């Protein structure tokens, strides 16, 4: 059953259909919430509460629209509500490399991540969404609650700034 059919089934009260609709997007939802809240515990609560809201809002979901940006918008709103009181900012870490670093490796991953962390918050957020989470411009716009055009211009400026810091 494709996403449109699953959404329709979920709108008729199908709990299994709802689970099938949202399950593919849980990893990216949780990571987005983690990026926004800076806390795995808060991210977990944010996603769970977002799922409650998504379930209740299914009746207003427009037929044929993709689920992922819609869900990410709800998740991001829940995450921002939690973040406001905590004032935390996430610091991402790299997975420990299975292989020792190659001498003369072209990309200094650790240095790049440090440069990303040094960016202003808006710039870090848009680059994290686009490149670390792999969100599309539309999904990033939904997650950051800005227009798609803003994502494009903000990404361009953030890349320029990152290049300055990284080089």
């Amino acid at each position, binding site marked *: 059953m494709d996403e449109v059919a699953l959404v329709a089934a979920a709108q008729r009260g199908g709990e299994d259909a709802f*689970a099938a609709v949202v399950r593919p997007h849980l990893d990216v939802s949780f990571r987005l919430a983690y990026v926004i809240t800076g806390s795995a515990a808060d991210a977990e609560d944010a996603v769970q509460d977002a799922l409650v809201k998504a379930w209740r809002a299914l009746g207003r979901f427009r037929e044929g629209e993709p689920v992922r940006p819609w869900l990410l918008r709800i998740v991001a709103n829940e995450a921002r509500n939690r973040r406001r009181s905590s004032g935390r900012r996430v610091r991402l870490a790299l997975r420990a490399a299975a292989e020792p670093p190659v001498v003369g490796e072209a990309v200094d991953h650790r240095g790049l991540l440090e440069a990303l962390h040094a960016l202003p918050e808006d710039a870090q957020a848009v680059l994290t969404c686009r490149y670390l989470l792999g969100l599309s411009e539309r999904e990033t716009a939904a997650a950051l609650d800005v227009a798609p055009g803003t994502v494009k211009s903000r990404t361009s400026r953030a890349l320029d700034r990152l290049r300055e810091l990284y080089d």
Partner: protein
Amino acid sequence: MTELERALTSLDVDWPVTPAFDLRRPARRRAWAVALAAALLALGVAFAVPQSRAALLRVLHVGGVTVERVQTLPAAQERPLASTLGMRVSAAEAEALLGRPFGVQARLYRSGDVVSALLRGPVVLSELRTGVGTMILKKLVGTGTTVRYVRADGAPGVWITGAPHVVLAPELPPRLVGNVLVWVRGAITYRLEGKALTLDAAQDLAGLVRDR
């Protein structure tokens, strides 16, 4: 895609493991119940271990407040908020009762061990010290009233809304009350009450009530 963009895409971030979520008819996280129970146990307050969420909501102890779901509400009248506050007390007397200053600067009142202030809205903010085994306020809710877990200023709490419920307080007759937010922070149980109070407004207010 530029080289820098490719480098960003190739970052192998150590993401936290995605937890399991309730996906079938999702409900607010059971962890809330666990967190609330843990907070209350830390305060030494009895807490019935829930067999189910429904059972949890039949009798619920939130700090010094007990919420009990009943089939039929006892006879009670709605009263103006200002008439429910008790007698005037000084800030020093309130601090002696609570063990710390009241959360906002206002004219203070006392009913038993409960210290209250009337805020704009009108909304009543009450504070009570949560001692071991203390059960100071009792709330009886009927089937038309909703009780759900919420977070208030980052602390676990409950939001009581819908049909008016009955509150039994020391030295005062039973009365019908509207929407209420109750939460526990440290040794203090906080309570906001207002007929037109919304959850958003209550949570905003809760954020302003801090240790002074």
